[in-house]
């Protein structure tokens, strides 16, 4: 029956993602598979995925400075960009979830022990849905660096965690966005677990004076590229 209609496939990136076994990041030691991954041909379960949308979003979800009675401490920033696939096509209507520290480098989490102050006006979590052009926009504050126990004097560079669904199971991505000019990046094993220096650069947002709003907030721009559909796709259906 109609299942004989071809379905899309998504290219498998090579040399982009970090290896699961990376000794510089100690926690990988007992948490990476040692046997080779088995190639899974992409069939219906893999080329479909959850299309989670507006029903999850409330108006303050994308403005992390408006989630409490007062304004949080720290440098206010506007963070915007596009979610694309690797062929440059926008990924519309897809859920983005973010979490981050406050300005002092402290997460609001019960297992966080960094002795930096919590901010009663900042939780550090957000959600947004991309528009028809794949655009997203958050207002938040610049997160801080924080120490961690990986090695002596280990500090994570400032970053914001991003979780994305795309349109298919194969496009799912969890990553971290970094800030330009951060001196901790060359020292950070998680950032440097990505083998290709050019790929590492793609995790760094760009400062944008045009996006910056006078007397109010700095602007940063960060595009995210998910896996793309292969050229062998059956192309008679409109993507949008």
């Amino acid at each position, binding site marked *: *029956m109609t*299942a*004989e*209609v*071809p*379905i*899309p496939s998504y*290219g*498998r*990136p090579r040399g*982009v*993602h970090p290896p*699961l076994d990376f000794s510089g*990041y100690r*926690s990988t030691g*007992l*948490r*990476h*598979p*040692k*046997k080779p*991954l*088995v*190639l*899974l*041909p*992409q069939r*219906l*379960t*893999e*080329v*479909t*995925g*959850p*299309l*989670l949308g507006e029903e999850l979003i409330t108006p303050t979800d994308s403005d992390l400075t408006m989630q409490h009675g007062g304004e949080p401490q720290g440098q206010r920033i506007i963070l915007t960009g596009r979610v694309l696939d*690797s062929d*440059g096509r926008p990924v519309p209507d897809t859920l983005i979830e*973010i*979490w981050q520290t406050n300005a002092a480098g402290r*997460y*609001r*989490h019960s*297992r966080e022990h960094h002795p930096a102050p919590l901010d009663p006006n900042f*939780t550090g*979590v957000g959600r947004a849905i991309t528009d028809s052009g794949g655009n997203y926009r958050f207002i938040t504050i610049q997160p801080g660096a924080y120490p961690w126990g990986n090695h002596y004097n280990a500090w994570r560079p400032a970053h914001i*965690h991003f*979780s994305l669904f795309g349109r298919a199971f194969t496009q*799912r*991505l*969890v*990553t*971290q966005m970094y800030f330009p000019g951060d001196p901790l990046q060359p020292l950070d094993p998680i950032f440097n*677990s*990505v083998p290709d220096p050019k*790929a590492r650069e*793609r*995790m760094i947002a760009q400062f944008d004076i045009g996006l910056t709003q006078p007397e109010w907030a700095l602007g940063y721009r960060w595009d995210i*590229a998910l*896996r793309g559909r292969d050229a062998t796709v059956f192309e008679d259906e409109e993507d949008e």
Partner: protein
Amino acid sequence: MSELITPSQTVGPFFAMRLPWPDGPFVVPEGTPGAITIVGRVFDGAGNPIPDALIETWQADPEGRFAHPDDPRGASASGYRSFRGFGRCPTSPDGSYRIVTLKPGPLPCPGDEGGTEAPHLDVSVFARGLLDRVVTRMYFPDETEANAADPVLSSLPEPDRRATLIAVPDPASGRVLQFDIWVQGDRETVFFDV
């Protein structure tokens, strides 16, 4: 064009600030007629439970269909309105997770391939210490014939590891299945390159 793709980074220890949803474990609401519960634990290479992992599941509906534009058959006529297909559950301090769902139907293999995939869930594991998610599949213990014909289960390079992909029935309840995930070690679960 992988030269444009944004690299993966670990979900870290603090994802619980954002990623768990109150209704995340419920692919269908608890009490839905025919619902099954998948329970399991996630273990590291020393055999210790992983208390800060996130499990995500994605699956077809009971008719083997997806409410998604890339399922050429379209959504099931019957709708399954409360069925999301997607489940998400963080692990507890003992490494356990729980997903409430409906059993998926078998799926036709696409294109010229022919054949049928046995009912299954695609399962992603995220955790501190995992720089990228790992992906496995959960199959059903009461599908002996379908599992034998399944193109994935029947072509594993190491057939003796097939059992790591098949849930174990709970002797106390026909509606509960146990699916433990061993990220590393002698009992390491089969993980896939998707």
